[in-house]
């Protein structure tokens, strides 16, 4: 076991798979000699060579086209989009092409591609770096969308993502890259994609969340506990497909639920979670399922992040509305 930050756990997962499988290729803008703008691929080119870990020209659509073509010739591409706000340049490559490869060829071809990309607010990035665009991805049939919130989850989920024979979007929250360390096994292990994790147990309220909001929700749960309310915090870990079994089981126990996301209210995947709870647990609900989200504006100018991003006060307040309904 070693103490690792999330970014170290991510590097460790890539190193593991580069070692395990000669078909794994890691590429993107500045991921080679530079080791990535966040050092996620630090040292990998030196260890595995320029044929395995390499830079690309500056063109996101070209990068996903490269991944698709390499996938068709037997490679297992792990491509990086420097910031997920740049995904618009390659929406066709991801949602229009790799997501549909298996289906449109009737299973003859497939796209064993992992798309890694940083996103997320709280670190005062310039425009279109921090936007939460997982909702766009979650709407595309053929994609799985994974968002880890801890170093341990990041390693196990990234190993699963790379080994998956269909495309996986792996979104890495920038604020979580180095915000804390955690014990991460040095040996390989996997975490099943599509499985949520109960990060805190409780009987009074279910908080369903993902990404940086997992930690916001855990802090809010601590505050609620001081007032005698025990919240159960579920980290979805995969936002498409949703692990509704874990969520429904919890809601049946607590009879109350709150969904917390960093994305705007009209975006993200919170509405999907609410709809599923309504479908499968309405008779167990003592109150409507409410949401904590960002406002429906464009992602804020950096100096306005503090007033715009959802925080633990928002979660506590909204939780009380559900509890006192």
């Amino acid at each position, binding site marked *: 076991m070693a103490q690792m930050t999330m970014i170290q756990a991510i590097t460790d997962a890539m190193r593991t798979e580069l070692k395990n499988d000669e078909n794994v290729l890691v590429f993107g803008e500045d991921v080679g000699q530079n080791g990535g703008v966040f050092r996620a691929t630090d040292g990998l080119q030196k260890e595995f060579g320029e*044929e395995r870990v390499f830079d*690309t*020209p500056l*063109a996101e*659509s*070209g990068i*996903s*086209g*490269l*991944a*698709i*073509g*390499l*996938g*068709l*010739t*037997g*490679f297992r591409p792990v491509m990086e989009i420097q910031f997920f706000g740049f995904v618009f340049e390659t929406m*066709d*490559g991801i949602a*229009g*092409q790799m997501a549909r490869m*298996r*289906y*449109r*060829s*009737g*299973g*003859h*071809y*497939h796209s064993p591609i992992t798309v890694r990309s940083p996103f997320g607010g709280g670190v005062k990035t310039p425009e279109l770096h921090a936007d939460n665009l997982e909702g766009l991805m979650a709407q595309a*049939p*053929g994609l*799985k969308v994974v968002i880890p919130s801890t170093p341990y989850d990041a390693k196990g989920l990234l190993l699963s993502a790379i080994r*998956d*024979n*269909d495309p996986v979007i792996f979104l890495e929250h920038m604020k979580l890259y180095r915000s804390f360390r955690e014990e991460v096994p040095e040996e390989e292990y996997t975490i099943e994609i*599509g499985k949520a994790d109960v990060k805190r147990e409780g009987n009074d309220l279910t908080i369903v969340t993902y990404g940086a909001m997992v930690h916001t929700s855990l802090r809010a749960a601590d505050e609620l506990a001081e007032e005698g309310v025990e919240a159960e915090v579920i980290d979805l870990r995969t936002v*498409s*497909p*949703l*692990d*509704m*079994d874990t969520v429904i089981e919890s809601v049946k126990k607590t009879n109350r639920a709150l969904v917390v996301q960093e994305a705007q209210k009209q975006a993200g995947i919170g509405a999907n979670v609410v709809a599923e709870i309504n479908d499968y647990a309405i008779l167990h609900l003592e109150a409507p399922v409410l949401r904590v989200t960002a406002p429906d504006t464009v992602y804020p100018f950096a100096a306005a992040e503090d007033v715009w991003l959802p925080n633990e006060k928002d979660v506590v307040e909204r939780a009380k509305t559900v509890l006192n309904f």
Partner: protein
Amino acid sequence: MATKTLEQVEGHFEMFQILNEEGEIVNQDALPDLSDEKLQELMKRMVYTRIWDQRAISLNRQGRLGFYAPVAGQEASMLGSQFALEKEDFILPGYRDVPQIVWHGLPLYQAFLYSRGHFHGGQFPEDVHALMPQIIIGAQIVQTAGVALGLKRKGKDNVAITYTGDGGASQGDFYEGMNFAGAYNAPAIFVVQNNQFAISVPVEEQSAAKTIAQKAVAAGIQGVQVDGMDVLAVYAATQEARDNALDGNGPTLIETMCYRYGPHTMAGDDPTRYRTSDLDDEWEKKDPLVRFRKYLESKDLWSEEQENEVVEQAKEDVKAAIKQADDTPKQKVSDLIEIMHEKLPVNLQQQLEEYREKESK
């Protein structure tokens, strides 16, 4: 200064031709080394494809085919280039480029199923190295850079070839794909079939560039403009591009100057709205079949009898293929769910059960 530069660049992209409209060799030095049998095979394929195109248009009008993009006029461009490939070269076709993948090995009935919209049309046989026709114009270009790099990294002596039209050369992916292949020195061939129109928009409205071939300069790769109605010129240019790529000299952009005699697609396009009959007449004189027929006849390699045999064979094959397409089982929602992922996610597992239940009733 700048004006001079442009003239100098354009001067490098004069059209490459071997056979003129009368079927005479005008460029003996460039004549490809093809046996009599191969020359006859090329002619057979062009005649066969012309008949299949006529039949496909008619079957579409009868409602027995779906989406169809006519190919008459482009036989030399499509088949001359495919003829220069090896079996394990990988083709990434556009939506009009069904003939290339059929001659690369895709059974005709599967091409018809693709036209109708049936998933079995995309279940290519193992030994057919090609993708399904690409509908998103330009996507095939960036993917070609990836396939070409993959072939190179796997140590294969093969190329990736892709096709788009004159309109497609305005897409961002067109430039990205060529540029990536150039940067990685990958064995790729990019063919732009310049049939003068992107639906109703003439090529002059796509770009101020005098040729599409010169766009290769932006990627730092080889570029050549070829008479796309001259099957020998298209063959020779493709073969040279292939040899060059495998010698490690990088990708080539080939612009074939051609024409589609029919509409853009069979989905209600009416070319009389945007094309003059004078223009049609001008290009009909350049018909790739007419000039190659004259050439072969002058060498005593082609007769009316041989041609009729091919015509009858094509008609018979089309009939048999349509029958085989008709006999293919109808698609069920459960089939469509099953081809989404290797291992179905939980939402689809649930929906699979629901649809299986419905389908069993």
